[in-house]
């Protein structure tokens, strides 16, 4: 008989996996909500964030900072760097992959962000090592710690595994996800900038007429999206421990699917979508013999079912008003 502990193990795994999907999915729904375009390189931006944190860690390590400074300070500093990089990457994404196609069909930004995703992946693969090692040499001289190759799997610093415990790390991952969601909720509903972003997502023309500076809001959206994706990159890296430069494409597809299940515009839908996708995958892997081979496929079947039967998403409401 399958013991109870087995089910609990699986539920725990699904929640963690769901957290990593959720944060990427939120990136998708933020961008789609405000601009009506699918920014397909969200996963790659997150992994770019993870790699910039990894690079900064390597450099700090060479400086001997990681051992002497308080752990929390190191983590915050690394997060800040990751956030900075992702925010800038978000802006570049907007400038070069979205803005030029503002007046063309929605397919254009989709294709151009798919292409951009490939560029980001390969840039990580190619530039991660020379840049990291170059900077490390420059600041730390002889003490520099080096990474080997950008295309090989890299090990992410286990900053959250307090005392080597994965249980503590897992709890922190879930807690940070919840905190990020709450902060995002407060930002979207309690600040003018957040309300303006929601307004654009609901009625772009009216937002203009209400006096919202739409182009500025779009830029802010990309910065906020970059911040969320950087944190998700950090959590994904901490959870996986081993990262590859091309992990972004898988996370991108999973995050996109989660966002579709959630209704694409809806932040809470993205959370439910991420969790649903993770639960389907883990439960199919766990209970169907040889199920891992079909887990992803079944998860995508769920997505297709949603697209066909409930395109407005899992908690998307049908609104009477159509503009």
């Amino acid at each position: 008989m399958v013991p109870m502990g087995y089910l609990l193990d699986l539920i725990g795994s699904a929640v963690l996996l769901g957290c990593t999907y959720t944060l990427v999915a939120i990136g998708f729904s933020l961008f789609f909500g405000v601009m009506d375009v699918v920014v397909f390189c969200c996963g790659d931006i997150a992994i770019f964030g993870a790699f910039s944190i990894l690079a900064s860690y390597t450099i700090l390590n060479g400086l001997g900072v990681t051992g002497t400074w308080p752990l929390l300070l190191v983590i915050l500093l690394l997060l800040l760097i990751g956030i900075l990089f992702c925010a800038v990457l978000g802006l570049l994404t907007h400038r070069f992959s979205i803005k030029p196609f503002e007046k063309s069909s929605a397919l254009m930004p989709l294709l151009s962000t798919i292409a951009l995703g490939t560029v980001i992946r390969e840039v990580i693969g190619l530039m991660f090592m020379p840049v990291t090692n170059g900077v490390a040499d420059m600041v730390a001289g002889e003490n520099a710690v080096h990474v080997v190759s950008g295309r090989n799997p890299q090990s992410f610093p286990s900053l959250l595994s307090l005392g080597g415990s994965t249980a503590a790390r897992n709890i922190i991952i879930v807690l940070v996800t919840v905190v990020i969601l709450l902060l995002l909720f407060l930002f979207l509903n309690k600040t003018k900038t957040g309300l303006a972003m929601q307004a654009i997502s609901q009625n772009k023309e009216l937002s203009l007429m209400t006096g919202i500076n739409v182009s500025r809001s779009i830029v802010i959206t990309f910065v906020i999206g970059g911040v969320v994706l950087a944190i998700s990159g950090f959590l994904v890296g901490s959870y996986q421990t081993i990262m590859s430069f091309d992990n972004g494409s898988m996370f991108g597809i999973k995050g996109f699917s989660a966002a579709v299940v959630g209704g694409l515009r809806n932040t809470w839908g993205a959370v439910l979508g991420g969790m649903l996708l993770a639960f389907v995958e883990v439960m199919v892997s766990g209970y169907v013999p040889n199920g891992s081979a079909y887990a992803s496929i079944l998860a995508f079947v769920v997505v297709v079912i949603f697209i066909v039967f409930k395109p407005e998403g899992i908690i998307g409401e049908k609104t009477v008003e159509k503009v």
Partner: protein
Amino acid sequence: MSTMLEVRNLHTSYGRIPMLRDVNLDIAEGEVSCVLGANGSGKTTLVKAILNMVKADQGTMKLGGVCIDSWPTHKRVAEGVSLSGAAVGTFPKMTVETNLKMGAFYVNDAKILQDRLEEIYTSFPVLKDRLQQKAGTLSGGERTMLAIARAVINKPKLLILDEPSLGLAPIMVEEVFDIIQRLKKDKMTILLVEQNAAKALAVSSRGYVIQKGAIVFSGASDVLQKSEFVENPVM
């Protein structure tokens, strides 16, 4: 009486197709003016051009004597041009209250905002009962009320109402025009864009007729009332 909005020699186009040709408007402060025109005559283009949502090919505009040609849309709104209309709609997933607050996007003082909201609740009592309801779930009439209230809360120098009565039941149309009457009494400058010529001319003091993107008549409303444009079925 001074001019609130002065439009001179306005031309716009959609791609290569000319839309507005040599449009001139003089909207007097504290008055209701109306623009009459059939579907596709260029009414909505004119409204959007005033807000700079459609770029002008040539022409200049002055708001309260200040040239606003270089102002982007959000600046024009912030400086007092508000637009409302049935086609413009509301933010469907936001509550009525949030919709109103979005209307006063440039009011940063919580106290002033609260006062403005109270004023709106007095003049639009129907909204007060629905404050926490999502705008998308309101009835058509209630939504029109909300759309107008959202524009009024900004205390605009110029309120543009783009076909506010479109698609409403007759009883609601009455109510909308009652509101316009009330706003007129409060000396709000209003540009009313309508197909319903009789109703529009009844509340307005000056009228324009737009056909194929050009103003073909401008003058006092009572003169326009008796002119061929209103009797002509082409309208």
